[in-house]
């Protein structure tokens, strides 16, 4: 890969500042739980399904614990207690609670040690299921290895899971390596996860466990047929991050959109809520061997990509450190960035190349997630197709990990089958024709690209050191990211955040952290 002469001391300092920021947040996280963290635990321990009003049973259970003011002890305690009391399994208990036959909070309490022993056993079973899924992935990857990075990532977004399946299979056949099922607008603000196979969505399809399973099955079939493992992606963000992580871990998703700050900045979700949720969701993702995709590209949809380039880098550092603290390996950190500089600017291609090469060099092990032009796409589909080609060229020349393919109709509609097909053709041509370009290019020492990259690095360092000083929450309050100011107590979902009691228990936490280690090598 082409090498930029970057100031290593600044990289180190930036990483240290991000570490400090992340550790500060982690101490807050460690003291809290949320309704969705608790629901995720229940799901992993075996609770699923909905009642007649389509309310998910995990919600009903957690709700009843919360109503009693006992969520600070952890919902799973009451579930296990009820299991001991009734002799039912988790789902049996949940169904009886849902039907009103059982009230979790009215049952006699079994000795804590007995309850925890049961919980530990359920947790072990849950983790075994996740491990099984993970091993199945590893086995399939060994059997059907994919091509070289950048992997080609496309979205399906019809709103109807059955239509999505057709489109996903067609995309895989055309050459896509990764299929993301885009979520319907608005799902991220639901404080529950919808249930079952769904056929109605706007701009995307509901993320449900049944939808995950159906798509996974279809992709497994096509993987076997093509001899190439096709990865599946969904959105682990919004008000239900940990629950979606749990579902994805069980249904063997391979990647999850999962950012520490996205919900706060772009969905006005309360920052305490998101910061706690992201940790547990990432822990699950880490354990499941899922690659997360962070959302730095979103900064550039509202801010100018040249002016705000350093905020992208700063956020990458923060996502990296928070990710490592949640047990993720570098190889699981699909840090995001994007090709969003106004294409009409002279030398814009140079600045894109500089940014992409810089990210590659600063995060050498991360499978960087590289987003295509979106903001400057117009109804001129020919120009759009070309922009996507230049983006693909930068992707292959700088060795990005995950290449989200741009659609020529980005400014018009969610992708048609043919738009996606053309996008894959575009990437395949460019990446094959320039396969080893990265090895052949050297950048002029001290030239425009190097200067630009060092500038961006310096500004990111400045920002990170400032944030480290004031703390991330204050920085968010001051609008230091994405030009958006968010109050510590504003936004959606704060009511779902609970301070852990001394006797709080999450049976999954310890085994996962023990196995994963925490904080990586920073």
């Amino acid at each position, binding site marked *: 890969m082409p090498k930029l002469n970057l100031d290593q001391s600044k990289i180190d300092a930036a990483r240290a500042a991000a570490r400090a920021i992340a550790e500060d947040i982690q101490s807050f996280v460690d003291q809290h739980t949320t309704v969705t963290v608790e629901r995720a635990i229940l799901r992993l321990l075996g609770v699923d399904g909905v009642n007649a009003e389509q309310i998910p049973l995990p919600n009903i259970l957690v709700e009843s614990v919360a109503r009693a003011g006992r969520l600070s002890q952890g919902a799973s305690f009451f579930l296990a207690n009820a299991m001991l009391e009734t002799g039912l399994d988790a789902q049996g208990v949940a169904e009886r609670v849902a039907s009103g036959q059982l009230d979790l909070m009215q049952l006699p309490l079994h000795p804590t040690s007995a309850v925890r022993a049961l919980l530990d056993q359920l947790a072990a079973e849950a983790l075994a299921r996740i491990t099984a899924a993970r091993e199945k992935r590893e086995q399939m990857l060994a059997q059907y290895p994919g091509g070289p990075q950048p992997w080609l990532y496309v979205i399906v977004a019809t709103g109807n899971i059955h239509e999505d399946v057709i489109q996903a299979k067609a995309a895989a056949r055309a050459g896509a390596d990764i299929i993301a099922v885009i979520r319907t607008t608005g799902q991220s*603000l639901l404080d529950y996860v919808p249930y079952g196979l769904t056929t109605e969505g706007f701009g995307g399809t509901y993320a449900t466990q049944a939808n995950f399973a159906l798509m996974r099955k279809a992709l497994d079939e096509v993987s076997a047929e093509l001899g190439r493992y096709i990865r599946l992606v969904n959105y682990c963000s919004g008000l239900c991050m940990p629950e979606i992580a749990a579902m994805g871990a069980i249904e063997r998703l391979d990647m999850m959109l999962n950012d520490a700050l996205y919900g706060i900045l772009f969905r006005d979700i309360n920052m305490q809520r998101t910061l706690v949720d992201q940790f547990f969701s990432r822990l699950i993702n880490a354990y499941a061997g899922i690659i997360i995709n962070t959302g730095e590209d979103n900064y550039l949809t509202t801010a100018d990509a040249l002016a705000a380039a350093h905020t992208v880098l700063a956020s990458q550092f923060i996502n990296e450190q928070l990710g490592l603290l949640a047990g993720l390996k570098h190889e699981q950190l699909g840090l995001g960035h994007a090709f969003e500089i106004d294409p009409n600017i002279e030398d814009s291609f140079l600045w894109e190349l500089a940014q992409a090469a810089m990210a590659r060099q600063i995060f050498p092990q991360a499978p960087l997630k590289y987003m295509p032009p979106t903001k400057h796409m117009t109804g001129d589909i020919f120009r759009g197709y070309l922009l996507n080609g230049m983006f693909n060229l930068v992707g292959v020349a700088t060795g990005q990990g995950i290449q989200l393919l741009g659609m020529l109709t980005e400014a018009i509609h969610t992708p*048609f089958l043919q738009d996606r097909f053309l996008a894959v053709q575009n990437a395949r041509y460019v990446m094959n024709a320039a396969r080893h370009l990265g090895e052949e290019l050297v950048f002029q020492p001290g030239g425009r690209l190097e200067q630009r990259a060092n500038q961006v690095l310096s500004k990111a360092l400045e920002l990170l050191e400032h944030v480290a000083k004031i703390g991330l929450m204050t920085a968010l309050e001051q609008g230091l990211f994405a030009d958006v100011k968010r109050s510590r107590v504003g936004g959606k979902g704060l009511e779902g955040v609970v301070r852990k009691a001394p006797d709080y228990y999450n049976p999954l936490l310890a085994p996962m952290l023990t196995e994963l280690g925490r904080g990586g090598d920073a």
Partner: protein
Amino acid sequence: MPTDLTQVRPYGDTLGDGAMQISFTLPVPSGPQAAEAAKQLLQKMGLQAVSIVHQADMGEGFTFFVAYAKCPISIDYTSVRVPQVTTTYMDFDTTNDFIRRHIGRPLVVVGACTGDDAHTVGLDAIMNMKGYAGSPGLERYPMLRAYNLGSQVQNEELVAKARELKADVILVSQVVTQKDVHVLNLTQLVEMLEAEGLRDKILLICGGPRITHELALELGYDAGFGAGTLPPQVASFIAQEMAKRLR
């Protein structure tokens, strides 16, 4: 060869040749029969000299086609009328003066991205202080009192807020249009305003990249603004239309 504007036809390289490029997908497996079907389909649409220049197997029984053909149909350009906002364009100062003189008080403007739409960039471009493409946004106008409610605002919420703030004008932004969700959202708002007896009291404006003035009128709005709208266009319209109504 001056063009006869009453008989305008697509142009490839010769006046009147009718040349058109078309691409589409058919849910049939790739092959000669697919190409023939594609050709016949275009012929059935009335196209002539249809040439299927490319077909590609997209898998799952779908085939992609690129075609060129000649369109025998012409249009009388001289009689094409565009439903357009007819108020005249005024700049920042002129608009403020106009409101001062003709209305005499600041107008209250409430804006939101409604339903599940979270695309705020367009509405912000129109409303925010800093404005768009060099033109200041509505918030900067001393004679407009502009409230930007942001994204994913439910219609109920918007109506309540409009009532609370005694809004003269409501601005709605709709960017997501898949499965015509924007039509749904926009229609629901009109119905709510009517049900609450507010519709006549409010200047109702919508905007977004797929919105046209024509569509807006159809849906019961007073105006619609599409891609590339600048804030002063909206401010001019508000000022002049409100003056007319309050006269």
